């Protein structure tokens, strides 16, 4: 085997039993992009880990390291980092009355694993002892928005009025209000807030810009959406959620080649591999290998426990496997966990394809009551009432 220079990265084989090894043509060919700047972050992590090794019961060291792990894991959508964070927090993990900082991080790990009730309990305990913990309020609001409990999510955002800056409060509120009939006002408020916050923390900016992009897309303001997504990408911070959101936007716009180009080197991440496959499928390319790969990924995910993202699998099953009934099942399982517009969408799309108006029922009711605005959802909703 030709010896590859250190500058290149790992070759991953799709399937050990069947695929042939891929041998790059030149040394310079990029096979895969490593998630992080290995050297700089690695050094930082090494220093943090050293401190923890020396004093594993020192809460501050442990939470610093765990927080860093979670930041990386969130940016990379890599669930292993949640595991590393949990390992570091072991001395306090099972304590009901853990220190506030541990409680917040434990909630972060749990919500990442979709254990939303447990995460909310953790946050409530933290807030009972430390009502000025802004991170806890923000996380509480985000989780509550994901599971569709909007009044409490809104109230959590209001708690941030005195604890975080205007951009955070506006984005927090905007996320909720945009789902309950005030999407335009949310968009305008958030757009204004970002302009007034040039010194905002980059992580906050990226989060706010991503939200703006998604909001604009849901309002049908596609040029604006593009602008916001590009500005977010231009911050140079790796964020898989942003990449997914932008890819979904491009897919909806029919810009499949761009999706393929954007995500070409990102196939390590299941959700991004899925979007590449969706783009290639739309372009009429042969996706058999992608499909096999994804099937294996979802299967492997199930081996570890219930699928962590039945919504993605539902989309895969509907579009690439063309099995609408099974897609409905998966989408319903997903809907029982979480209730964001994308979760409503995949359920309605699957139900539409399977001609299963009953499956769509609960979603249609909730959307109507909340007043959620979304141009794609509106079309889907209309398609069901037209049939009646």
């Amino acid at each position, binding site marked *: 085997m030709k010896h590859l220079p250190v500058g290149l990265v790992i070759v991953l084989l799709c399937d050990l039993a069947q695929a042939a090894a891929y041998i790059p043509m030149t040394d310079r060919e990029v096979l895969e992009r490593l998630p992080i700047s290995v050297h700089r972050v690695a050094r930082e992590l090494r220093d943090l880990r050293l401190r923890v090794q020396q004093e594993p019961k020192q809460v501050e060291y442990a939470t610093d390291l765990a927080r860093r792990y979670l930041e990386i894991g969130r940016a990379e959508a*890599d669930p292993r980092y949640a595991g590393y964070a949990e390992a570091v927090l072991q001395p306090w993990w099972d304590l009901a009355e853990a220190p506030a900082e541990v409680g917040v991080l434990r909630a972060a790990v749990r919500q990442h694993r979709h254990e939303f009730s447990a995460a909310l309990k953790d946050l409530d305990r933290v807030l009972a002892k430390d009502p000025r913990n802004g991170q806890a309020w923000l996380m509480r609001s*985000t989780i509550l928005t994901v599971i569709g409990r909007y009044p409490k999510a809104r109230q959590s955002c209001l708690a941030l009025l005195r604890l975080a800056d205007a951009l955070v409060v506006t984005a927090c509120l905007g996320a909720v209000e945009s789902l309950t009939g005030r999407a335009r006002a949310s968009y305008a408020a958030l757009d204004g807030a970002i302009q007034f916050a040039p010194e905002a923390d980059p992580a906050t900016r990226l989060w706010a810009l991503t939200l703006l992009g998604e909001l604009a897309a849901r309002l049908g303001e596609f040029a604006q959406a593009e602008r916001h997504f590009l500005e977010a990408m231009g911050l140079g911070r790796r964020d898989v959620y942003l990449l997914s959101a932008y890819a979904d936007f491009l897919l909806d716009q029919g810009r499949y080649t761009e999706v393929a180009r954007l995500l070409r080197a990102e196939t390590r991440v299941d959700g991004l591999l899925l979007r590449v496959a969706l783009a290639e499928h739309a372009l009429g390319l042969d996706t058999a290998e992608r499909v096999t790969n994804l099937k294996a990924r979802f299967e492997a995910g199930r081996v570890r426990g219930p699928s962590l993202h039945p919504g993605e699998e539902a989309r895969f099953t509907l579009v690439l496997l063309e099995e609408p009934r099974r897609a409905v099942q998966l989408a319903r399982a997903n809907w029982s966990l979480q209730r964001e517009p994308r979760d409503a969408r995949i359920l309605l799309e699957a139900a539409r394809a399977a001609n299963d108006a009953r499956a769509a029922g609960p979603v249609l009711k909730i959307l109507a009551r909340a007043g959620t605005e979304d141009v794609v959802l509106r079309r889907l909703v209309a398609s069901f009432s037209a049939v009646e």
Partner: protein
Amino acid sequence: MLRNTLKPMIQATALGLVVAVAGISLTQAASHREAPQIAQDPAADITDVYAFRNWGNPDNVVFIMNVIPAQEPSSGPNYFFFDDKVAYDFNLDVNQDGVAEDIIYRVRFTTRIRPPFDDLPVAYAGVDGVPGLPPGIRDLTGPDAAGLGLRQRYTVTEIRNGKSRDLGSGTMFAVPSNIGPRTIPDYESLSAKGIYSLTNGGRVFTGQRDETFYIDLGATFDTLNFRRTPILSAAEDQNDRRNPFGVDMFSGFNVNAIALEIPISEIVKGSKSVIGLYASTSRPRVLQILGNGTSVGTGGFVQVARMGNPLINELVIGTGRKDNWNATDPKNEAQFRGFYRNPRLAAVINLAFGVPIPTPPRTDLVQALLKYPGQDATTCTRANRCSELLRLDVTAPPTQPAQQKRLGGLAGDAAGFPNGRRPNDDVTDIVLRVVAGALLGPVPNLGDGVNFNIGAPGSNLTANGIYQVFPFLPTPFDGRNRRHIDCGESGARPCN
């Protein structure tokens, strides 16, 4: 036959991970939105500032500064105490030039850990009737104070026209945290001993009190209606003794207070009856950390926090410039004028409550927060400064506790905020309405649903938690029996 070519080309050994696995899902996309890590605001030294005429003795005004907020009463073994390195200042403008340097009342602390506690892991101890142990703490000095291991002495200095005057009439001690009934059998009696006379005819108290800032951080919205906005009905709005839908999540927390009572005649000499005030904390410019675990400050004081009107930093400035704002002088508020003229909070109010807001520029806010009555709110100049001060008209008659309205000036109670600020004024509701335009015309009854300080312990209280005598803040919760009034308890709304 395919050989096993799984040897990793690169081992990410710097991460301690070997990232070369085949066929197994390594990563997924985040299938739901997650909150980012936000910058936690640094703990502001000052949490609240009050200024009002003593309704029991209207010849005097009272200034209070609260620091170290949200104290969980049971936080042993050291509890909460003031910082020796900090200068706690009340800065007054008495000639309405917007520069609050005319009189400064400065409070400084000196902490001592008294034997035998310098050798013990606890700062306080006291049990009646156990030989070998100090008795319960019943005094701040003398044999009944034997259990007061960590004790803080303090001075009050008046600085006027460059001259300093010590106002203390003897040695003065801060009242310690309310640890619990065994260590401090009669906390109210002990804290009364912490009220000292000043040589200018005033009084002073420093020590722990109940956190009177009430805000609903756990409102129970009507979950059957996705869009219920927290607007109070007329009946709810007028009832200062019931929380219509909120839960005061600060119930059960304590704060450290510095309370000064000063004769008005000491402050107001001429005809200008409206004074301006801000409180500040300052620290030494240089802090040397010594090898033995202590530190020493040198190089003059640098202001690290200030507060005049409530909620300015959080709601009006509202951006990541809070550190910057905290270090500046109120007289230079012109540099932040844009935030007052076009407050971010207005957009948030519109988004959260759905009420229309007045179009900028908001000269009404500049007038209310940065100017004395009669000054021109359209400009900020050296002769006509925009100065962020809490302004108090010392000729407005005080309102007795039973007649006080939590909405102060907005409910016709001219002795309340924005004319000065009393501990039980509902500044959250007031500020929300003022930003929504209450000074320009009627606005809906915006509010957080918490109308009073529920569950305040101890004596001298009205039904809605107003502490009627100096230092005008309730007895703090004790560490042993502290009570957070949670949702579902009587007086609060049911949990949701």
